[in-house]
């Protein structure tokens, strides 16, 4: 819905306004307050829901909350068992957190694009961008954490020398050492970058299309935003799922000793 104020700034102004985060500070020390706030609230929601289920957890007949939580737990556990064959106390909870948190981030995309900025402007906030996954900082924060875990487990399982050997001598043997090293480094670094950019790209594009639809006349909007929202339900779940599965796969690769 384009209001008069936005119309005055023009379509470009409206789009830029919607994609500018509520920021604080200068240079590197800028904080995107909306990203931090909404992801923390959504993380809190996730933790609260599962904690409620965990507190009431019983081996008897499960309640509604426990049933839903267990469904997700089983789903994540199946994914982990499918691709990860070691024993780790971290990977399954990590995967669950990633799936639920990313899903909730993405879910914010389904709220009408003007609702939260409108509430924000009533509270005196100039900008408000509510979908954390349209912020590169959020997606990179997660993928870099995963990257650190990959490095940590690689070294822990294979030992520093084993990991270094894998970087230097694979895949083409010791005679092509510099080439191997370059290839391996690119491979490793590509993991967090592709993880973060895939999620960011999908959600940023999705949000942009919602904003573009919102610029159209009101009678065209439902025709377009309704199918796009339905399609988006698939996308947000799929992106959360992909992020989770790739994390599991990368970590299981880190656990495998060649």
């Amino acid at each position, binding site marked *: 819905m384009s209001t008069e104020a936005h119309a005055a700034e023009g379509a470009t102004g409206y789009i830029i306004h919607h*994609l500018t985060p509520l920021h604080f*500070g200068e*240079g*590197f*020390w*800028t*904080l*995107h307050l909306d*990203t*931090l706030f909404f*992801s*923390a609230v959504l*993380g809190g929601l*996730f*933790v609260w829901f*599962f*904690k409620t*289920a*965990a*507190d009431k*957890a*019983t*081996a*008897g007949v*499960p309640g509604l909350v*426990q049933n839903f*939580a*267990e469904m997700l*737990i*089983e789903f994540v*556990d199946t994914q982990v068992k499918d691709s990860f064959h070691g024993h780790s*106390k*971290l990977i*399954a*909870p*990590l995967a*669950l*957190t990633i799936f639920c*948190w990313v899903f909730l981030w993405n879910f914010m995309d389904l709220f009408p694009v003007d609702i939260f900025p409108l509430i924000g402007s009533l509270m005196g906030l100039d900008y408000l961008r509510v979908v*954390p996954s349209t*912020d*590169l*900082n*959020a997606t*990179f*924060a*997660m993928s*870099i*954490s995963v990257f650190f875990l990959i490095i940590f487990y690689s070294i822990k399982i294979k030992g520093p020398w084993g990991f270094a050997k894998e970087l230097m001598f694979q895949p083409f043997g010791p005679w092509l050492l510099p080439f191997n090293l370059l290839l391996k480094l690119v491979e490793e670094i590509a993991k967090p970058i592709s993880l973060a950019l895939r999620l960011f790209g999908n959600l940023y594009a999705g949000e942009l299309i919602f904003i573009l639809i919102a610029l159209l006349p009101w009678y065209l909007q439902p025709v377009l935003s309704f199918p796009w929202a339905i399609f988006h339900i698939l996308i947000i779940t799929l992106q959360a799922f992909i992020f989770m599965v790739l994390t599991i796969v990368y970590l299981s690769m880190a656990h495998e000793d060649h």
Partner: protein
Amino acid sequence: MSINATLIGQMITFALLVWFTMKYIWPPLFDSLEERKKKIADGLAAAEKGQEQIILAEKKAIGVIKEAKEQSSEIVTLAQKRANEIVEESKDTAKKEGERLLLAAKAQIEQEMQQAKEGLRQQVADLALNAAEQILNAEIDKTKHQDIITKVSKQLS
């Protein structure tokens, strides 16, 4: 649209969430799932065992019933035999008793007959004596013929 300190904040949040999930969320829920799986498996095993026990019990019951039937028919046979015996015995006893009673009756009859005979003899003797006395009273001295009378009365007995 640039990478900045938000990244660090997000990483901290992420680390906290993962830590919390790992510590307080995953273990209880996962354990309850595993426990339920175990419970169900146990229940199924117990049900199967129960089924087997029922079959065993049925077999046992059939055996017991058969045995009981055999026993009861045996008892019936024995009882019939015993009843026959009792009947035979009582028949015997009855016969003996009857014979005994018959004998006793005969003896009594004999005795009574004897008594009657004795009485009759006495009366006849008395009558004869009386008659003789009356006759002799008229003709002979009683004391003279006492011996003869006694002899006669002796012969009568």
